[in-house]
């Protein structure tokens, strides 16, 4: 290399470096996806490298997809090829992309991969050619190509290194721009999902009264849900209810769910007959159902007069009746899911009447059986165990308590419905408890309030009468229990109105045991001593009366360690009887 050439080389090196730093600066706050910017970058690369022409190809589509193409986004020179689209593996451009290696071709005509100019639409002679891939963060996003060094000679290794450095910078800019776009798209989708989830949540019943017969709970595994439940109160006192699960997850299931929910809302009031209602919903769903999707659904009508539910079941998990005795009875589906056969329009779905009585009927989606309860695979047994554990909870809050066992990370949407006559269920529980506990005469939960004391006395007197005791004996015990309740209200709950007292009276041999349980802060038994009678002053007599009117006053260990448990015993024998 002579002195002139060496000086020329040094000057080109300097200009490459200043171009590189300039481009890096530009890339940091501009986007190569912008055509004008891409064009200006290419022009500067071509000038810095003394190239006759330059082109920038960007991968369009998923590179793993055979339909993906390399598309020329910008092109400068005598014969621009902007818009040219080639397969990813075509030509030297394709080779640079697939190998990830910069390509320097001194004599393109002799390269087997070289695509002859006419095919590329470049009528000028290609004498020397370099290609470098645009890569960053493991993504191959494009190729930059420069053609023919002005002044004749071929490109050399140093030119190739410079081009590779420029391509790396451009690659980073393209990947950054792509990722920013993807993030923006993801955020937009996320916002839309959240909106869709809100719309879906608003479809579920709200402000269901605590004493309603039908209560529901639904929580989606992800933003949107394929499950729904609903209930419609009819003017005659009956309630139409539904629970459904759309096959699949995601937005398509969510949209079908909205349609099924809307159909139920529309027809539930007008056709309060489960079989016909399902047939009606099915026929309308089938008109537009996407092939391969289906809906399992139970609809029913609760009649408070007969305490029964008449249901029709299209392929859904069997509704489960829990009898007051604790026995479970499943009611398997009698017909296929909606959207599969689509021929039942004129038929009715078969109906089953379930005598709920004092029990509770549970409907749930497969998220209940296929999920995990307290970390363990649920299954049918898990579901039954869970229902059993919460059978004593008020129906209005029971399902939430049940759902809490499934944790925060749901695998599938979780939806529950319970149908229960609350008053009848309470009576049934008491009857069952009496049957289970021989000698139990009274088992009653009462608000810890002064106006309940009269009821307490009547309950005690009735139990005493049942046990064969006389009026005075009964009255003595009633007063002792009254005094004990007063202590709970006054000193236990300290006037707080939310507390309750559980009163149970049982016959034990020749005496009556009265047990009073509360959930007030624990009372130290030594604080409950009677006072000396010499001290005439208001108050403080209650405990004295309890002791004098019974044969034993004892604090027992409270169940579950909470609150207080007081046992009053009075012997039935003697003259008082």
């Amino acid at each position, binding site marked *: 290399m002579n002195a002139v050439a060496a000086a020329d080389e040094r000057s080109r090196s300097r200009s490459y470096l200043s171009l590189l730093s300039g481009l890096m600066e530009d890339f940091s706050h501009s986007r190569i996806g912008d055509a004008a910017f891409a064009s200006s970058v290419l022009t500067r690369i071509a000038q810095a490298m003394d190239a006759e022409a330059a082109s920038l190809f960007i991968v369009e589509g998923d590179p793993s997809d055979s339909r993906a193409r390399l598309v020329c986004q910008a092109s400068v020179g005598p014969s621009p090829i902007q818009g040219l689209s080639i397969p990813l593996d075509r030509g030297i451009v394709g080779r640079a992309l697939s190998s990830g290696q910069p390509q320097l071709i001194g004599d393109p005509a002799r390269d087997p991969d070289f695509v002859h100019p006419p095919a590329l639409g470049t009528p000028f002679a290609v004498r020397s050619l370099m290609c470098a891939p645009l890569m960053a963060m493991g993504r191959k996003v494009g190729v930059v190509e420069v053609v023919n060094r002005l002044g004749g000679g071929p490109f050399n290794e140093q030119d190739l290194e410079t081009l590779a450095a420029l391509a790396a910078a451009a690659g980073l800019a393209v990947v950054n721009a792509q990722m920013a776009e993807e993030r923006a798209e993801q955020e937009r989708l996320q916002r839309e999902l959240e909106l869709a989830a809100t719309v879906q949540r608003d479809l579920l019943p709200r402000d269901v009264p605590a004493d309603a017969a039908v209560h529901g709970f639904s929580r989606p595994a992800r933003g949107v849900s394929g499950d729904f439940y609903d209930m419609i109160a009819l003017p005659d006192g009956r309630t139409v209810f539904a629970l459904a699960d759309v096959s699949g997850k995601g937005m398509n299931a969510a949209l079908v769910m909205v349609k099924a929910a809307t159909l139920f809302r529309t027809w539930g009031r007008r056709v309060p007959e489960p079989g016909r209602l399902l047939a009606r919903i099915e026929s309308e769903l089938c008109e537009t159902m996407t092939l391969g999707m289906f809906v399992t659904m139970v609809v029913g009508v609760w009649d408070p007069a007969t305490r029964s539910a008449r249901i029709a079941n299209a392929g859904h998990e069997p509704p489960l009746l829990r009898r007051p005795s604790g026995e479970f009875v499943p009611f398997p589906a009698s017909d296929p899911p909606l959207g599969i056969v689509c021929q039942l329009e004129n038929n009715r779905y078969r109906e089953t009447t379930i005598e709920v009585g004092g029990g509770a009927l549970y409907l749930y989606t497969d998220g209940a059986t296929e999920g995990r309860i307290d970390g363990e695979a649920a299954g049918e047994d898990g579901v039954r165990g869970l229902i059993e554990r919460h059978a004593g909870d008020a129906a209005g809050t029971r399902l939430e308590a049940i759902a809490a066992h499934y944790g925060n990370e749901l695998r599938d949407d979780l939806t529950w419905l319970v149908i229960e006559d609350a008053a009848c269920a309470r009576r049934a529980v008491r009857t069952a408890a009496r049957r289970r506990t021989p000698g139990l005469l009274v088992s009653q939960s009462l608000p810890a309030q002064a*106006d309940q*004391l*009269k009821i307490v*006395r009547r309950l005690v007197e009735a139990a005493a009468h049942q046990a064969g005791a006389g009026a005075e004996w009964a009255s003595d015990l009633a007063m002792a229990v*009254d005094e004990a309740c*007063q202590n709970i209200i006054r000193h236990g709950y300290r006037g707080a109105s939310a507390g309750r007292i559980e009163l149970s009276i049982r016959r034990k041999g020749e005496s009556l045991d009265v047990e009073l349980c509360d959930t007030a802060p624990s009372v130290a038994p030594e604080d409950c001593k009677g006072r000396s009678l010499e001290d*005439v*002053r208001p108050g403080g*007599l209650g405990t004295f*009366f309890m002791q004098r009117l019974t044969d034993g006053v004892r604090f027992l260990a409270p169940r579950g360690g909470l609150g207080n448990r007081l046992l009053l015993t009075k012997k039935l024998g003697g003259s008082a009887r």
Partner: protein
Amino acid sequence: MTFRTAEDGGRVTVFLSGEIDMDRSPEVRKALVEAVKRGRALTVDMADVGYMDSSGIACLVLAYQQSNGAKQDFALANVQPRVRKVLELARLDKVFRIQ
């Protein structure tokens, strides 16, 4: 509800009625305290009281103490067996004048 009262030459009689328990005792306390203020002597007529618990007894004790403080006579009248038993249990039959 309020209790019937009668006045005769400075002696106020309050006619209590029903079951006097924690729920009713605030009314009883109010009626007796007012009667002590109003008259020169107090009789609590218990003819219609079938039941009285410690909170009712406490009202009687309070009225008795206030009457003593005001140098007034305090008496119970027509005490029924159920209530008498309770007063006896608490030895208050020795404290109150029972007519």
